[in-house]
């Protein structure tokens, strides 16, 4: 066990998988000579050379399509979007080509590719550079969607994503890149589709992913001082959704709060709530609550930006609501 940053964990995962499998290569803007716009690919060019660490022009639609073609021809591309905001340029290739070709070809043409990069709000970069796109991708059959929180998640999930024979959308978070936590030694992989329980408590289930897990844990600490103990579930994988872990928790707590950084309309929170209501209606002692971004583009002004994103206080308030305390 060693304490490393999320950034290092991601780099280690890529390096280990590239050493193990020659089909794996990294492609994207500034990934090679610049060492990554966020320094995630630091040192990879030196180890693997220009044939496998490939700087692209600024051409998201084009290089996403090219990487998809390489995957269809049997390689294992890791495709970095400098941020997922720019993946919107490549959406047609991701949805219509990567996600659907296996089905349309009757199982002949698979697309083992990872699209990775920071997703969600950064700090003070305004609306076009700050959005959580998890629900966009999670909507589509044929894609897996992963969102790590800790360094261990980052390494273990990225290794599994690279090994997965399907297209995987791997949603990192810029603010978490520098966060440090323990990562098990050796060839450590976490299975896709399994959530983690970050904190155990019997009063309420709080489901979150990515940086919202940190906010949920902060809220849980302050709630504990009020005598409310929260189960905090880190989804890790958004699709396929681990409803079993969520339902198991709700069966003990009877109460559910879902936290997402994105907008609530047709969001991940809605999906989790629907799954729990459909499969565990009798387990619930209160209507589920969602905590999400304000239903507006993200503002630049510091005070408005802070108001727009879910804060620990918002989560704590939602928990008190579902626990019928503080009324």
């Amino acid at each position, binding site marked *: 066990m060693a304490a490393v940053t999320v950034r290092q964990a991601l780099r280690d995962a890529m390096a280990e998988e590239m050493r193990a499998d020659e089909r794996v*290569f990294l492609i994207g803007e500034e990934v090679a000579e610049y060492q990554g716009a966020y320094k995630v690919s630091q040192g990879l060019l030196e180890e693997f050379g220009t*044939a496998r660490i490939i700087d*692209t*022009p600024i*051409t998201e*639609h*084009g*290089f*996403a*399509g*090219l*990487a*998809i*073609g*390489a*995957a*269809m*021809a*049997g*390689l294992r591309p890791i495709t970095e979007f400098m941020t997922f905001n720019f993946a919107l340029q490549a959406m*047609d*290739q991701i949805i*219509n*080509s990567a996600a659907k*070709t*296996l*089905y*349309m*070809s*009757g*199982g*002949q*043409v*698979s697309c*083992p590719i990872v699209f990775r990069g920071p997703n969600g709000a950064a700090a003070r970069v305004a609306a076009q550079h700050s959005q959580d796109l998890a629900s966009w991708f999670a909507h589509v*059959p*044929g894609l*897996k969607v992963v969102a790590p929180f800790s360094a261990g998640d980052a390494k273990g999930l990225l290794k599994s994503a690279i*090994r*997965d*024979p*399907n297209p995987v959308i791997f949603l990192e978070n810029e603010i978490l890149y520098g966060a440090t936590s323990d990562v098990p030694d050796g060839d450590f992989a976490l299975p*896709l589709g399994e959530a983690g329980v970050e904190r155990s408590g019997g009063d309420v289930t709080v489901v979150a992913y990515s940086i919202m897990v940190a906010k949920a844990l902060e809220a849980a600490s302050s709630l504990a001082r009020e005598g409310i103990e929260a189960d905090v579930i880190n989804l890790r994988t958004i699709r396929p959704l681990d409803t079993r872990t969520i339902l198991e928790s709700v069966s003990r707590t009877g109460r559910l709060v879902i936290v997402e950084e994105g907008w609530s309309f047709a969001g991940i929170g809605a999906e989790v709530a629907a799954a729990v209501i459909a499969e565990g209606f009798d387990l619930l002692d209160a209507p589920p609550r969602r905590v999400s971004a304000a239903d507006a583009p993200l503002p630049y002004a510091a005070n408005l930006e802070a108001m727009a994103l879910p804060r620990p206080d918002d989560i704590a308030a939602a928990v008190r609501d579902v626990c019928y305390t503080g009324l």
Partner: protein
Amino acid sequence: MVSPASADPGLLTGFYRNMLLVRRFEEKVGQMYGMGLIGGFCHLYIGQEAVVVGMNAAIRADDAVITSYRCHAHALVRGVTPKAVMAELTGRSGGISKGKGGSMHIFDTAHGFYGGHGIVGAQVPIGAGVAFAQKYRNTDNVTLVFFGEGAANQGQVYETFNMASLWKLPCVFVVENNRYAMGTAVGRIKAGTGIFRRGEAFGIPGIEVDGMDVETVHEASKDVVARVRGGGGPVLVEMLTYRYRGHSMSDPVKYRTRTEVQKVREEQDAIDQVRARLVERGVADDAELRRIDRDVKEQVAEAAEFAQQSPEPDPGELMTDVLVASGDG
């Protein structure tokens, strides 16, 4: 003109047979569509046969081909059986994609055929990616990336030109200019000069080829493929061709005159040209040509029969092939 193909009579006869197969196949598709046996969008290749037949003869079995939704012919000349293509069109389990792709999504990677793509232009970066994989593996394979003159206005085509040239990818970009992007004549949507020159700014040489003459197509393609296979980087080939039918089966073709179509058929038809040459050069007599016609007709009839007899996909197929099961990869 004495074409080198005349030195290889078998080749010219093969061209004739393959072009005829494509035409008779597509004519049958048109009939079956009219009978309600084929649904959805369906784009016929009639008129353009010389392009795929001539180009396919210039590449090897282990090379790759990718195209748009007008894909039946490309699959057939790569060696996919007419039965497997036709049953895909009728949406049956015997189809090459188990009936789950339909007319626009024929794939057969065993024959190096990567589809069959429905979004105009999307196959261009994907094809460059297949070429990227060929180069990554240090093979000397090439990929033919087909697209229409309509797709030549999509931005991703130029994003791809840039990368393909920068990285000297082994791809031949082939514009099948059939003069109409759906219902819009090419002159109404194309700024500048010939499409074949649109790679120049990226350092991609281009040539314009009479796409109605299969021998010309073949000769030009051999040179281009040799250059690309030798590591010279991508080349852009504009094939001047013509489709006789509508853009798709639902196109009433109000945007051009019957006279225009008739003129091309009479003066430039790819199959008629080769038939005349076969006789003229003494390669095949009428009896031989009739035998080929009969064989092809039989082959197509068998495919049509198979495509109607093949059962619909099992209901269980609805939820298969959404994801590859972990461990299968």
